Every structure is written in C-alpha cells, then in structure tokens.
C-alpha cells in the first residue's frame, strides 16, 4: 500500500525554500478561511447538518487536535500508554471554570495556571508510575483519569454533578470579541495554539529530548545503556503532554461556558487515543489528520442518527485493518535512507 506520508515528504524535500514558504502560507490561508466554507456553494458540503459548523471547528475538531498532539508525545513519541489523558483536560477546564468565576482573573491569566497545574499533576502521577512498564502504566493512568473525575464529581468547589456554569468568555484579543457569536475568533485562537504546539514538538523532536524519547520507545534497557536518564525523560514527556491537555481544557471551558463531570469520562481518553492511532502514531501530520477526521465525521453524518456510531465504528475497524500503522504513519526508514543516499 502506498505510503502517503513518504510521498508527501518526498515532494516536500524536492522543493526549494521559496516554494515551501509559499505552500505553507497558502495552506494557512486556506485553513484560516475554513470557518467560512459553509457559506459558499462549492464548499458547503463541509457543513455539519445539526450543529453549528463554526462551533464544530473549535470543539470537537480543534480541541481533539490539541489533545491528540499532546497525547502523541506520550504515546507516539515515548511509547507510554496513557489511558487517563482526559484528566489533564479536566484539570485545565476546571482551573479556568473555578478561577474565572471565583476570582477576577480572566482566561488568559488563568491559562498559565491551568497549564502549570496540569503539568504538576503529570509529574505527581509520573514519579511513582513511570517506573512501571507497559500494561501496568496503562492501568494506573486509567485509574488516575477516573480518580480525577470522581474527585471533581464529589467536591463542592467543582459544583459536583452540576458542574460549573456561567464561565466568562475570554477578553477580546486584538479587538476581536470571543463569545457565543464569534466562534470564528475562537477558531483562530485555537489554530494559533495548535501551530505553537506543532512548532514546539518539532523543536523537541529534532533535539536531544526527541532522541531520548525515540530510544526509550524502541528499547528502554538499551536506552539506559546509552546513558539516557529514562525516568527524567518519561516525566518530561508526560508533563509536556499534560500541559497541552491542560491548555486545551482552559480554552474549552472558556468557550462552552458550562462544564460538568460527564464531559470528562474515560470515553474521551479512548477517543483521543483513537485519533492518535488512527492518524498514525508518532507523526504530527497523521495525528492532526486523525483528530480532524474522528472529530468531524461523526458530526457530518449526524443525519443517520442512531446508526451513526455503528457506522463510524465499522469504518474505523476497516481502516485500521487496511492500514494498521494509521493513515499517515511515522516515516519509513528504508525510504529515508534511499533519499539521503541519493543526495549524498
């Protein structure tokens, strides 16, 4: 089966700098204009039938992409199976909900606090558990996700089952309002966040942390023999992933205005993990694509109502059977070598 990722990489490597810049710029323009696609006849097929298309772009699509990128660092890059990722999203969301309703802080001021709290919980969870391997880690993280949800469900400050309502919208950015009537602006904010995260991940990946994660994923014992302090790098991976989940949570709460514990169930962890696996573990573009599809398609086919999830599930099973490494898998080394040899 053809490897789209390698095809794309081939094309990209063949281009010179101006060509690449033009391409990225054009792509960004198209993506930023996506919220208006529903208004034109040639692109109206993108419209989601029973939900506001512009809202769908922010949630679930934008949120899923952010979370999937964060989880991909943990699962895809470092090979740590985290089944409780939703916990960090919840921590971010509740940090924003509580602080913006109970103090004078606004969303942007809460953002670093939410990220820090998510990271901190990532470290606290990671310190004792990242010594565990494989299945054990999966079980413990699954438990962590549930514990966070149950704590939220049972404390008074989080509003218990009712959750938190009347969460304020973020203050305007560059004179652009961020409220119910301006989903487009939310989309652009989320788009900027996604681009920042991608930029950050790419920087990490080509540097020492990326090498360390890669080594840990491929063979933990050998990584130790190379002198990689594996616990430290696993905790970094965990807390960076957590930070991204937390950031997504903060913006999520500020967008939807009401949050409740049932938005943060185990299902979300599984769905985000599916985005990563479906798109192609370890590859940023695959993950972005996977998250987009898994967030968008169920909204697009809402008209088939009850059978929707069944159809969706079947499609997932079929696709994963045809492409077990995901739609856009991580780069295939043999081809890479061929390319480098050609240019060498």
């Amino acid at each position, binding site marked *: 089966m053809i490897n789209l990722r390698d095809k794309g990489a081939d094309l990209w490597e063949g281009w010179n700098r101006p060509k690449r810049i033009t391409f990225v710029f054009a792509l960004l323009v198209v993506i930023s204009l996506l919220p208006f696609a529903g208004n034109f006849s040639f692109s109206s097929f993108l419209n989601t039938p029973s939900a506001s298309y512009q809202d769908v772009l922010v949630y679930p699509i934008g949120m899923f992409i952010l979370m999937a990128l964060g989880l991909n660092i943990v699962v895809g890059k470092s090979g740590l199976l985290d089944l409780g990722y939703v916990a960090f999203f919840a921590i971010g969301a509740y940090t924003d909900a509580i602080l913006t309703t109970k103090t004078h802080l606004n969303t942007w001021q809460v953002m670093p606090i939410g990220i820090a709290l998510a990271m901190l919980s990532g470290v606290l969870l990671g310190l004792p558990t990242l010594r565990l391997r494989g299945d054990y880690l999966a079980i413990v993280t699954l438990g962590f996700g549930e514990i966070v949800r149950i704590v939220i469900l049972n404390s008074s400050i989080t509003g218990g089952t009712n959750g938190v309502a009347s969460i304020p919208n973020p203050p305007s950015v560059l004179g652009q309002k961020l409220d119910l009537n301006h989903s487009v602006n939310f989309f652009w904010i989320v788009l900027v966040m996604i681009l920042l995260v991608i930029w950050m991940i790419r920087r990490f990946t080509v540097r*020492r942390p990326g*090498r*360390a994660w*890669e*080594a840990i994923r*491929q*063979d933990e*014992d*050998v990584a*130790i*023999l*190379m*002198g*990689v*302090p*594996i616990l430290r790098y696993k905790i970094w991976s965990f807390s960076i992933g957590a930070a991204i989940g937390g950031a997504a949570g903060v913006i999520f709460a500020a967008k939807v205005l009401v949050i409740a514990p049932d938005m943060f169930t185990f299902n979300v962890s599984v769905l985000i993990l599916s985005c990563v696996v479906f798109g192609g573990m370890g590859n940023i573009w695959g993950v972005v694509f996977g998250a987009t599809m898994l967030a968008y398609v169920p909204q697009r086919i809402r008209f088939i109502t009850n059978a929707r999830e069944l159809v969706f599930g079947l499609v997932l099973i079929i696709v994963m059977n045809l492409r077990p490494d995901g739609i856009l898998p991580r780069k295939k*080394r*043999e081809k*890479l*070598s061929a390319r*480098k*040899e050609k240019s*060498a």
Partner: protein
Amino acid sequence: MRLEIKDLRVHYGKIEAIKGISFVVNEGEIVTLIGANGAGKTTTLKTISGLRKVSSGQILFDGEDISNVPAHERVDLGISQSPEGRGIFPGMTVLENLEMGKYNRKNRKIEMNEDLEMVYGLFPRLKERAFQAGGTLSGGEQQMLAIGRSLMARPKVLLLDEPSMGLAPQMIANIFRIITQINKQGVTILLVEQNAQQALQRAHRAYILETGNVVKEAKAADLLNDPAVREAYLGTGAH
C-alpha cells in the same frame, strides 16, 4: 582501571540467578566469562552495567563500590555494554544508533566525527550502511553496530554479551579479531561467550560460570588444554 566483583548475588524475584560470585578484570585485559545457557552470564553483565539490582555483594570500579550508582551514570564512569541479541535501535539509522552511543558525553560534539571515523575504521561496512535502518541490517552487521555503538562512549571497560551469537564462522573470526584490536587500543574487555574456543583463544584469563557460581578460574590458554573444559565447553575439540 580495575573491575572487581565481590561476592555478588542477584535475584529475579525469589530465584537466585547469581549465587555469590567473585572475579577481577584488570586494566588492559580481555577476561572471558564462559558458561552454558542460563548460567548467569547475561545477568552478571546487566548487573555490572546497572540494569539489574545487586542483592548483596559489591561491584568495585577503581576500588569504589558502584552498585548504587544509577545505570545511566555508569556509562559516564567508563562502563559500556553491548547487549545480548545485538540490542540496537531498529528504527534508527546506523548513524543515529552510533550517535546514541555518545548520548551522555559532555564533549560529544567535538568527539563525534573522530569517533565515527574510528568505528567506521573498525567496521567499514557500517559506513556503507550509515543511512540504513538498524533493523534492516544483517545479523552480523547488527553485531558490528552494537559493538561500534558501545565504543562511541569511549569506555574504559567494554562488556560484550555473546558477540558471536548467530553468526557464520567467518564473521565470528572477524568479530573476534576486531575485539582483540579494540583491546590493543587500550580498552579493557569483559567478554561473555558460549563460543569457548574463540573466546579462550582471544582472552587473557577466563572464569567458568555454572548455574550462578564461578567454578573455575584460569589462564585462557590453560583452559583450552584442560580436558574437563574441552569435554564440557569445546565439544570433542574438533574445532
């Protein structure tokens, strides 16, 4: 540099795999540890490099007990292991694997080219395959890569776990020749082998390990002629 193992015991759960062994590797030596399957050779090496915990006893490196030094820091001390079954990173290229061998070196940028050339000098095949994925190398090439990679850390003592495993006779001779060459360049070597014939020919001294105990210590050349050893580890001696 002197590596001394004192009364070492290692457990897997309740099973005692190493039952109080002692041995010495002096600077500049090739010492070989010979034993049948399950004798505890790999366990011994893993314990020296820190992958397994010591239950009791000491690992003295230049007189200092390193048994509580974290594994990843033992590389900095000068202990480098080439793991059993080659243990390379299959998804990284040959070059990336070699670079990983220098992961913890403070001067890695300065040393990199020089040491790559040194490894390529020992194993020209690796240079030809520099951009090929480790996992797609042949068994012998993977073995070369594992040894070359462990040299990238500029070790004082090199721990080799069955470098001849699964290789054709010609390749085995080649690998052992290079082991001698590495030793001549000043690297002390602790060599674990089942291929006793080759190991004893190359080593200065040898220890025989049986189910977690050292049962014999001698000059390698003497063991080659020891009838009991020939019987147990060299087959009929028809090699």
